[in-house]
């Protein structure tokens, strides 16, 4: 081979030598392309695998851990939930509508590839400074894209989060999560089992869109991005709706041996992974692949990321039945290959072999890098900070009002009202509070879900910040009364070849592992997104955590809004003198600094169990997680949602700024009827949780007095700030 062709496939010289060593010959161009995508970070996790091994993946409820299209967790009564989260950051940076839309489409296919009917999606979004026109354009495009896909296919988008920070100016984050229901005894896998079985490609035709998308995801963004638009796929939710219905129909009729979504690296990744998992070989006959246009080269067919396609392994005798069902839905279902003995992945065109590589070379022999890691200077420097700004602010009522109208704390209605969050008739707790809650068919149970990340805290302290993110997502599920069961994640970082970025990644995965273990929420899968940089500027590291939980009795669910006058408000958990890494400090100073609040994971776990017990006992009227913005913001949110004020007076040893706006971890605001006061306090004591009585619900004001510092603001003023802001801030 002349030149250094491996470079154009994003392979290093050393990696090429390893390929030569494995193959005992020079690979041809097509074979090299296969290695290029399968060994990319996106498909092969070569930079992350060494650390992903640290994550706890087993638990009593886990039916399927990492490695399949999605994780699966048992819900009892023969029912299970399949769920996964994935990033679509780079495509969304370049073409926000299609980038976000196809992110949703891809994660939905991952879920139905397990044999599950998708029932809900969530989205975790991060954008740059909202005052920049580019940020607003991205926000509009991404939200419209998520809605365009989810609304059309009829899967409700029930929750999510959005965060704005200049570190995302050049590289937004779009993480989509999907959940689906399936029978716990009928989990389908992406395995090419059964020699001689037919490999069928179903759904859309293959075109040139998204060719090399996986490699593109494994590079940094730069100024020539517009040229990369052909790397972005185009979504067709209508096609996917038909594909979903047809697939569920053939699954119902037991016609399927294995199935696999075509996502990153398209036909290559799907077929190689299916063969690899089963330990079999697989042959593709490219002339049989239905094409959208003529003249596609074999490598283009193999690397196309055209959407809405799925690969099936079907027993030969059942192929006609499968074709008939797809025909009913006006869809193509074409045998394009066969499961073979020997373990080779072979690509043929009109009988001629174009590539032949043992599948295990592509899946098992991916080089694993535990890269150089170095603590960045900022880590120690930013801990030493002047945190007096909040306490120096004279009018806390004014500060609260301004915070509630700020990009990171104002109502997300502008976003979620563009999503159909009700279709399917299962959404019991809608977006706007903490976690979402779905009812389960023919059951009194509920499924709670939340996604969370905390970019600022992870940046300042990756270990602690990642653990905070897990705790926060778990608490958002627990405040509905549900027990957190398991989690999925999306790990968004900069370039792993930079030792300081790799240090962030290493520390964050340590923190994630620790928190998942302590909170008994094993990791059932996830996704790593590196190279989130533009022109050398990395994003704030952001592990996004999606937690699912089970509520045994839907009628005992808790929501965040204040319910009735005369109810008593309490704070569960402890407020400390912790002003570092807070939204309020950032709002006032523009600086992310100070020590990240401490985190007692044992305490958070107790808090989760206490909430579950209090909900089951019917002792609470409302529960709301206290996080970004601190206690004052949490109280205002519950008051606004319930259209009821609060009069509270309490005291403590910390400064008023910390009491109102500090972000101490593991705190929840609850309200209860006066009659339940004694049993409530009794349960808190049993779980050894500190509890502070705040005051009484009612009236039209938020009237708070901590020591002698007061906040008195009318709900009308807060309402205007909270509900109207995002649409105004985001106006094009």
């Amino acid at each position, binding site marked *: 081979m002349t030149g250094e062709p491996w470079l154009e496939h994003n392979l290093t010289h050393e990696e090429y030598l390893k390929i030569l060593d494995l193959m005992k010959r020079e690979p041809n161009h097509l074979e090299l392309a296969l290695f290029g995508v399968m060994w990319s970070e996106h498909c092969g996790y070569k930079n992350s695998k060494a650390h992903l091994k640290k994550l706890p993946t087993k638990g009593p409820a886990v039916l399927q851990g990492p490695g399949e299209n999605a994780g699966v967790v048992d819900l009892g009564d023969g029912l299970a939930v399949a769920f996964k989260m994935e990033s679509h950051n780079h495509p969304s940076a370049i073409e926000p509508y299609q980038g976000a839309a196809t992110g949703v489409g891809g994660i939905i296919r991952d879920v139905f590839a397990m044999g599950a009917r998708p029932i809900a999606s969530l989205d975790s979004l991060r954008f740059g400074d909202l005052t920049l026109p580019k940020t607003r354009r991205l926000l509009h495009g991404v939200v*419209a894209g998520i*809605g*365009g896909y989810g*609304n*059309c*296919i*009829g899967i409700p988008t029930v929750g999510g989060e959005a965060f704005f920070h200049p570190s995302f100016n050049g590289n937004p984050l779009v993480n989509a999560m999907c959940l689906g229901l399936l029978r716990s005894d009928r989990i389908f896998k992406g395995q090419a089992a059964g020699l001689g079985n037919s490999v069928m490609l179903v759904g859309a035709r293959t075109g040139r869109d998204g060719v090399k998308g996986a490699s593109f995801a494994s590079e940094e963004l730069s100024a020539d991005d517009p040229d990369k638009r052909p790397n972005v796929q185009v979504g*067709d*939710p*209508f*096609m996917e*709706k*038909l594909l979903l219905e047809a697939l569920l129909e053939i699954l119902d009729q037991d016609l399927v041996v294995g199935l696999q979504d075509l996502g990153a690296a398209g036909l290559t990744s799907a077929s190689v992974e299916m063969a690899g998992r089963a330990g079999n070989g697989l042959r593709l006959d490219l002339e049989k692949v239905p094409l959208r246009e003529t003249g596609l080269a074999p490598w283009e067919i193999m690397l196309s990321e055209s959407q809405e396609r799925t690969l099936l392994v079907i027993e030969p005798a059942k192929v006609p039945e499968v074709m008939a069902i797809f025909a009913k*839905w*006006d869809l193509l279902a074409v045998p394009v290959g066969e499961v073979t003995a020997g373990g080779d992945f072979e690509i043929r065109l009109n009988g001629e072999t174009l590539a032949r590589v043992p599948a295990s070379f592509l899946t098992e022999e991916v080089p694993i890098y535990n890269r150089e890691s170095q603590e960045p200077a900022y880590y120690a420097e930013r801990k030493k900070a002047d945190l007096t700004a909040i306490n120096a602010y004279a009018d806390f009522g004014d500060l609260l009002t301004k915070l509630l109208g700020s990009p990171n704390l104002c109502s997300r*209605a502008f976003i*979620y*009202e*563009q*999503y*159909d*969050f*009700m*279709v*399917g*008739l299962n*959404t*019991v707790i*809608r977006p706007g509070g903490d976690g979402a809650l779905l*009812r389960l068919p023919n059951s009194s149970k509920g499924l709670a879900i939340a996604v969370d990340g905390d970019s600022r805290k992870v940046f300042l302290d990756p270990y602690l910040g990642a653990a905070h993110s897990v705790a926060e997502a778990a608490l958002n599920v627990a405040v509905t009364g549900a027990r957190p069961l398991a989690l999925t994640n999306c790990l968004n970082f900069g370039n792993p070849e930079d030792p300081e970025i790799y240090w962030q990644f290493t520390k964050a995965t340590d923190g994630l592992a620790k928190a998942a273990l302590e909170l008994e929420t094993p990791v059932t899968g996830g996704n790593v997104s590196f190279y989130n940089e533009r022109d050398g500027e990395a994003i704030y590291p952001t592990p996004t955590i999606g937690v699912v939980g089970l509520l045994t009795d*839907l009628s005992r669910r808790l929501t965040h809004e204040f319910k009735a006058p005369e109810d008593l408000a309490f704070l569960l958990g402890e407020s400390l003198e912790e002003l570092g890494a807070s939204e309020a400090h950032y709002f006032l100073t523009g600086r992310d600094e100070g020590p990240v609040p401490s985190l007692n994971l044992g305490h958070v776990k107790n808090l989760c169990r206490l909430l579950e017990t209090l909900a089951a006992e019917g002792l609470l009227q409302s529960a709301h997680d206290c996080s970004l913005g601190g206690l004052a913001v949490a109280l205002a949110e519950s008051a606004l949602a319930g259209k009821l004020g609060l009069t509270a007076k309490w005291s403590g040893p910390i400064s008023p700024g910390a009491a109102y706006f500090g972000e101490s971890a593991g705190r929840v605001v609850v309200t209860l009827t006066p009659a339940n006061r004694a049993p409530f306090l009794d349960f808190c004591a049993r779980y050894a949780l500190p509890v502070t009585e705040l005051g009484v619900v009612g009236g039209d004001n938020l009237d708070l007095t901590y020591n002698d510092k007061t906040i008195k603001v009318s709900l009308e003023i807060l309402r205007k700030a909270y509900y109207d802001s995002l649409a105004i801030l985001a106006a094009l």
Partner: protein
Amino acid sequence: MKAAVVVFPGSNCDQDCRRSLLATIGVEADLVWHKESQLPNYDFVILPGGFSYGDYLRCGAIARFSPVMAEVARLAKRGSLVLGVCNGFQILLEASLLPGALLKNHGLKYICRDVRLRVETANSPFTSLYAKHSLLTIPISHGEGSYSASPKDLQRLKDEDRVAFRYATDDGTVDFNAAPNGSIEAIAGILNEKRNVLGLMPHPERLAEPELGGTDGRPLFEAVFQALGGLS
């Protein structure tokens, strides 16, 4: 009564409508595939919400050519009750079973939220259990729900008391600002001349069970049930 929910490719509220009928009035509706060209004489037919054919063209513009639509027209003529919700309403307009058109929301964005509706007439088999001018909370979820009609059609609708629902504010005011999508005269739903075909953008099936946050949609199905003589 015999009920059917029509399934177009891309319908996504078909199962919801079926489930809601079962939950509210205990009726098990048949799901009817859009390629059917002969239907039994159903008493009640729902064209559900969704994105028929992806709605990549004008909403409902392709679905109206589905074979089943001739049968829907036949049943409407025969006096069966026909309800079009959201995309179903769009299809009824495209099929000329109701007058007017639905345009893109005036804010150009998709909107999913609970809205207030004022019942404009109790004189129909769908609205007979609501008091005239009572206020309901029912969700909308659409990108193209801004109702429009020619001045002549609009006048007729009003003269013949065929505006079934209008959007309202929380205090019951009905004006242009009350319509989240810019609908002319805040119109949310209309009836045909014989009052047996109703099209509306809001989704009554979505707030018909307490767990989902409200039951204001329920009397619509109960009224249909009553009009059709119950389960007989």
